[in-house]
Every structure is written in structure tokens, then in C-alpha cells.
């Protein structure tokens, strides 16, 4: 799909929404307002935004856990307010304040997530099976990190999806690290996309800092899946700016991550790159940039205010949540 001015500005706005919301949660955590932990997604927003901004509402999405899904779920239609409220432990949160950090929004095809890395693969195969049986052209986006690709669950799910031609796009957010583990010490090849050959599906590597490149690769794979041609794997090369989780050391194995590496990646910031591109092409003016910044900050302020003013859940709901009536 060739993007017009409106779509390009939407992509830019989504990038900024994910970034500013993430920054606000980090700040709120430092202020003691966030009740659980947080894994910032700053630096890799183009992956989720490029992949999820033009999906159908009834497509299924398993977001990657960076930003606890922000860059994926906001473009998919989920509410920033509800994401923030969940992190603040409020009844208006995505999971009613019971999870603390899980994003769930079935009305937008987001069925939730797990705490164990690698658990996204098998359940996504199940969504792919559901989508195939539904026969309405739905697709599944299963998003994961470089580290997640080390789990054996990947093999079982990708194999099944390939032989059953399930409509799944596997999207790897390769940020070079899994907690403190550099990918080069956890995987013997350069590209995780190479795994695709073992399952006879397309495997594509894209620049994860380039939101358009991500969008184009994912769109092609989504079309393929919608048309019944089966799964694809897309690897997005990217980076995370902050440490693995807030408060954890910023290290590789037991040594600090190289400062030059962090600096080099920050020079290729996905928002900066895209903004420069849009300004150069005359799609945005500096006045537009300022206006969008203001609008996004207003949304973030509003979301935080909403979260802070929302009540905590009533604990009497807990036993009622165990089984469906």
C-alpha cells in the first residue's frame, strides 16, 4: 500500500505517542506511581508502529513486551489511558488492574500476553488456526525479541504454522540483547530471519529504525497471509536505549554496554529519522511538528490524569475472575 500524506502523519503521530507514553511511565515509576515493573521500549518504536498501524481491527496481535506493548497496541487501537491505568494498578486498566502490566483488549484483537518469554509462539499458532477456521481473511501478528527466538517453542509453532499454512506474520524485534545477553553469544548466525528457510517461508531483514521499511515488509507479509499463502518471518534490526528493565543494570554479560554503541543507535532514532524525512519531503512543516507534539503530550497528560483519578479494583472481584459464570 502506497502511503498518502494522512497515513504518513498517522505513522509519525503513532511513533510519538509510543515514545511519550513510554517516557511518562518511566517517570511515573520513578515517582512511585507504577505498581509493577517496566521494560521501556524507547528506541524501537518503528517496529511496532510500522507493523501495526494498518491492520484490520479483527486481526490478532501478540505485542512484543518492550514498552509493555505500547508501540504495537496503540496503533492497533488500544487505549493509552487503559495501558497507563493498568500500570498504575487501577480498575480502569486494560486487565482491570489485576495484572499490573499485561495489555489486553480483545475488541482490538489483543488477547493479552504472558510473563514467560517464548510463550507467544504456540498461542499465536492457535490464533492463526482460529483465523484460518474463521475464513474471514484475518491475520495474526506474533511479535517477539531476539532472545525469545532462542526458545524451543518457536520451532514447534513455526513448523505447525508452515505445514498448515496458517495466516501468521512472525515479527522479530532484534535489539541485539536479551536482558544482559548479546545476541551474538546466543545465536550462531547474523540474521534471525534465516530461520524462515527451515520452515519454507519467506524471511526478510529490515531496518527497524525505518518505519516505512517495516511497514512495507509487514504489509507484503500480511497480504500473503490474507491470501492463504501462509506465514512469513520479518526481522527488524533495532535497539533499546534504556536498560532491560527500569532499575536493572545496563550491561552486556557483566560489563557495561558500550557507550559508543548506544550513541551510534541514538543517531538513528526512528522518530528523528522519520521527522527529517517528512520535513524534507514537505509532508510536515515545523509548525505541524510542534502541533503534533502538543497534541500527543495532551493525550499523555490526559492518560496519566485518568489513571491517577481511577479507583483501585475492588478485591472482592478476584474470586469471581477465576471462572466464567
Amino acid at each position, binding site marked *: 500500500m502506497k502511503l498518502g500524506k494522512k497515513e504518513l502523519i498517522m505513522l509519525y503521530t503513532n511513533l510519538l505517542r509510543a515514545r511519550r507514553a513510554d517516557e511518562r511511565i518511566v517517570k511515573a515509576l520513578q515517582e512511585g506511581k507504577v505498581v509493577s515493573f517496566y521494560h521501556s521500549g524507547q528506541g524501537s518504536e518503528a517496529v511496532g508502529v510500522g507493523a501495526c498501524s494498518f491492520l484490520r481491527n479483527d486481526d490478532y496481535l501478540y505485542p512484543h513486551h518492550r514498552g509493555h506493548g505500547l508501540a504495537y497496541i496503540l496503533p492497533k487501537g488500544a487505549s493509552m489511558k487503559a495501558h497507563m491505568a493498568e500500570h498504575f494498578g487501577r480498575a480502569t486498566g486494560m486487565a482491570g488492574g489485576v495484572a499490573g502490566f499485561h495489555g489486553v483488549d480483545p475488541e482490538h484483537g489483543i488477547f493479552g500476553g504472558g*510473563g514467560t518469554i517464548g510463550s507467544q509462539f504456540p498461542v499465536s499458532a492457535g490464533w492463526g488456526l482460529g483465523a484460518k477456521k474463521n475464513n474471514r481473511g484475518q491475520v495474526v501478528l506474533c511479535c517477539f525479541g531476539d532472545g525469545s527466538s532462542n*526458545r524451543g517453542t518457536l520451532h514447534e509453532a513455526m513448523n505447525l504454522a508452515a505445514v498448515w499454512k496458517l495466516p501468521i506474520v512472525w515479527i522479530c524485534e532484534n535489539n541485539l540483547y*536479551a536482558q*544482559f545477553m548479546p545476541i551474538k553469544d546466543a545465536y550462531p548466525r547474523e540474521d534471525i530471519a534465516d530461520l524462515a528457510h527451515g520452515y519454507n517461508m519467506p524471511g526478510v531483514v529490515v531496518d527497524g529504525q525505518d518505519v516505512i521499511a517495516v511497514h512495507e515488509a509487514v504489509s507484503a507479509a500480511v497480504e500473503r497471509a490474507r491470501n492463504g499463502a501462509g506465514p512469513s518471518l520479518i526481522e527488524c534490526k533495532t535497539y533499546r536505549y534504556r536498560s532491560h528493565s527500569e532499575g536493572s543494570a545496563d550491561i552486556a554479560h557483566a560489563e557495561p554496554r558500550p557507550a559508543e554503541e548506544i550513541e551510534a543507535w541514538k543517531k538513528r532514532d526512528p522518530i528523528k529519522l522519520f521527522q527529517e524525512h517528512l520535513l524534507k519531503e514537505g509532508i510536515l512543516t515545523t509548525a505541524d511538528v510542534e502541533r503534533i507534539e502538543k497534541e500527543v503530550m495532551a493525550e499523555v497528560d490526559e492518560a496519566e490524569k485518568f489513571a491517577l483519578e481511577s479507583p483501585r479494583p475492588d478485591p472482592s472481584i478476584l474470586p469471581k475472575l*477465576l471462572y466464567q459464570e
Partner: protein
Amino acid sequence: MRQIPYVMAINEAFAEEMARNDKIFIIGEDVQAGTFRATTGLVKRFGPDRVMDTPLSETVVAGAALGASMCGYHPVADFMFADFMWCAADEIFLKTAKWHFIHGGKVQVPIVLFGNIGGGARVGPEHSQCPESVVWHTPGLKLVVPSCAGDAKGLLKTALRDPNPVVYFYHKRLLGLPGDVPDGEYTIPFGVADVKKEGKDVTVIATSYMVQHALAVAKELEGKISVEVVDPRTLEPFDIDTIVKSVQKTGRVVIADEDTKRCGVTGEIAMQIMEKAFDSLDAPIQRVAAANLPIAGGYMEQYVLPGPKDILAAIEAVAKK
């Protein structure tokens, strides 16, 4: 005596035993850094061949530990959060626990399965469990649940000398808690409960972090109810004799454990007391454990997990009867 934090005591035990036995090595995700600092710094001293960062692959961490143990090594498989052992359920529960037995005792599988347990971080049901009952339920796995720094060190040293698979669960909320740790060499045998505080009215049997709660409550009740706190320290093997002795003295029992109540540690201990000391009981046994629910995250965690208030209420209830 010297006081050091619980997690430093664990770290010391690793260092001492690794120096003593070059067959010991640690494998798992981020063990060189040490997510909870239990293994931090060991790579400097023992090198990356003995403190091995693995890919994010719990199944092969458990499987490789099992395999290497059969070749004459003594691996420590670190699962970071004990919850993640579930990703390697086949290797742990169907293989590691059973292979010595099912192969006629012809192979040895000396492994320490190391995991961090417990709530308190409000991070939801997949990072907060105390999955003791599932392990205890499984014949073939020893199970260590230390409640203080001194026990943490002495019991880990014993685990690293045991020719069997030992599951070692250390609690999040105890990591920074300082405790007495003797200078120099010592070990603590498995299957020997410790009376953490003597008392004569009520016996509280508590595990892991619950021991610290029980001691605090016992202190609060001083002058009103005299509470004896007994810590089994290892669940398998289990020292029922020390517990029976305490029950014979007090006649009143509270059992506190952070795992889920149903089919949990507390129920097993209660039944063993029934079998061995029914005639000594003056009141029905009270159990303090997690609600039969997944551990909610955020502010809801506290409504699922047991705390000092629950121990206090249970003690008052049995003391009245």
C-alpha cells in the same frame, strides 16, 4: 557473629563450593551478571566456562544440566524466576526427578535446580509463585527453602555436595535481609528442622519468608501468647520429628507457607501431624497460605498472598480454642 545479607550468603556458598569442587558449574540466563545477585562476581573468579550465560532457553538449561550431571559434573541450573522452571517441565519432572530410580540406580544426577520464588514485587502470577508443592509432590527431588542468611549458605553447600537433584528456592523478599553467618566452613544437613524461637502455647511451622513474618508476630505477641516458631528448612527430606516434639509441647498448631493453599505445603504438613501427633492436638490446625487464585499483580497481590496479619489471626484463633 558476622552479619551478611541472605543473597550474599548464597553467593559465598557458591564461591566456596566451586573452589572446593571443580566439577561444579552454573548455567542459566544472565548468571554472569546475576539477575538477583546470587551469582554476581563468580565469573571473575571462576571464568565463563564455569559461570555460563546461556541463550534464553530454559528447556535446554535443564536438559543440559541433567545431561552433564550424568557425565560426572555437578551443574547448577539457574532458572532466574522459579516460575520459569515450567518451561522445562519435562526435563525437570519427568527426567531429572525420575532417571536415577527408573534406571535401576545405575546413573547419578547431582544437580542444583536454582530459582527465585515469592511475591512482594507485585509483578503478577508468572513471576511471583512459590511452587514448592509441585516440587514436593514429585518423588525424586529434594527441596530446600531457606528463611535466613545462615541457613541459605549452609544448606546450599550441602545441596552442592548431594549426589541427587536438589531444588533450591530462595525468596525475593529475603534477598537483602542480613543474618548471622558463621566465619569459616560449615554445612547444614538436610532434614533437620530448626526451632527459630522457643515458646509454649502455640507452634507456628513456617517456611521461607513466612518464617520472618512468624518471628515478627511472635515478638508482637510476647507476654500474651508464647509462640514457638519451627522452620523445616528442607521439605524433602522433611523433619517431622522436631515438629511432633513441638506439637506435643504446645498442642496448638499454625502452618504458614506462601504457596497456594489447595493441595499445598500446609495441607501436607497438617496431615503428617495428624498421623503422628493427633492425640497431642488441643485445637484444629490452622493453615495460612495463598488464596486458591493466580497471584494477581499490582495492588491486588496483597489480597492473594498471605501476610503477618493472617498469621496473627490464626495464632489467636488456635490459642482461644
